[in-house]
């Protein structure tokens, strides 16, 4: 079970990242749990200053941009 978290305060890019992450996880056939973290205190707790950010199982994988579907797949593995 992968724990995927999307950090962001709800901007357009955050929605895009959530969609890409979901597509990638589905394409890989992963069993996953996706959570959108919008609380600033928790976002800052990850040490992330540029949103959106992708967190997989507690580690920050990407911050400040939306990766491509292929890159996201690699990050989820």
């Amino acid at each position: 079970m992968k724990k995927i978290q999307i950090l962001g305060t709800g901007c357009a890019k955050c929605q895009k990242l959530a969609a890409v992450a979901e597509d990638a996880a589905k394409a890989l056939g992963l069993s996953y749990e996706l959570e959108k973290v919008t609380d600033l205190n928790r976002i800052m707790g990850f040490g992330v200053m540029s949103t959106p950010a992708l967190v997989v199982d507690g580690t920050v994988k990407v911050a400040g941009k939306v990766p491509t579907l292929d890159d996201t797949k690699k990050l989820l593995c």
Partner: protein
Amino acid sequence: MKPVVTAISPTVGRPEVGSLGYLAGGLVAAVVWWLIYAQLADLARWLTHGALGLKAGTHLAGAVEFFIYETPKVLMLLTLVVFGVGIVRSLFTPERTRQILAGRRESVGNVLGALLGIVTPFCSCSAVPLFIGFVTTGVPLGVTFSFLIAAPMVNEVALVLLFGLFGWKVAALYLGPGLLIAITAGWILGRLRLERHVEDWVYATKTGPAMAEETLDWPARVRLGIEAVRDIVGRVWVYVFLGIAVGAGIHGYVPENFMASIMGKGAWWSVPLAVVIGVPMYSNAAGIIPIVQALLGKGAALGTVLAFMMSVIALSLPEAIILRKVLKPRLIATFFGIVAAGIMLVGFLFNAVL
């Protein structure tokens, strides 16, 4: 697995071949770019007067030629700039900038903050996490403001477009005062000791350790540049079209020196008015510059136009609303007030000197 490893090792030179390929591709692209760019003026003239058969000297012909010439020109310049900036920005990250700025004394910190504000990738939607990340890890409030003011104010797209359309003097006139305002306003805001006007919870936030930096090779940076082009040009081309259409209208139909009475040097009130009108207007730098160009051509004073442009780009209501999450109203008002005053000062100064 061992045989696989040895099978790969003879091709260790691969990434270099990749870099060479990128270099060759880049050179070819640059030559093609230049060949097309150099023909644009002739092409526009031919299309307007030859293909469309418009009579030279009419309002319509002036507007149409302006539009046909400027649209591809601005879009091509924009592509080039955004690509270059995308590569430069891959060298800077908000995390690295924070490390450079943390614990800096004011003055030096303000200068560094303003300079880094230009090159650090930053979108207004992450202004809040960035603000918190900066102030909770030892970047002084005033230095943070220098960064936050310079980031939108000295827009690299605007800078290069000004350079391309008006030459280096106007570009320098934009860069210098923009930096100066960011440095001075940040310094003043730092002196005013406004920390208590930051929302209380901000300083209580625990900012986690920064994530590990990934190191990029050059092909990866080139890909980032291409991605930036796709992202930014894909987003702003509408503004560019609209801006050039408005510019074309002004260019073709507004009489020569019409702007001199409203936006000329004689009208002192035009500078504050330009700033006030600029705040609720929220346009992209790439869209505003064709308008600027057309206004200047009709006798508007450079200081007034510059103030208008800076106000549109640097002071925006959406940004104020975003920052309201972390700043109390008085601090936001002070912030806007000082930056607006700086912009007006620049406007008056240029109108007086030039």
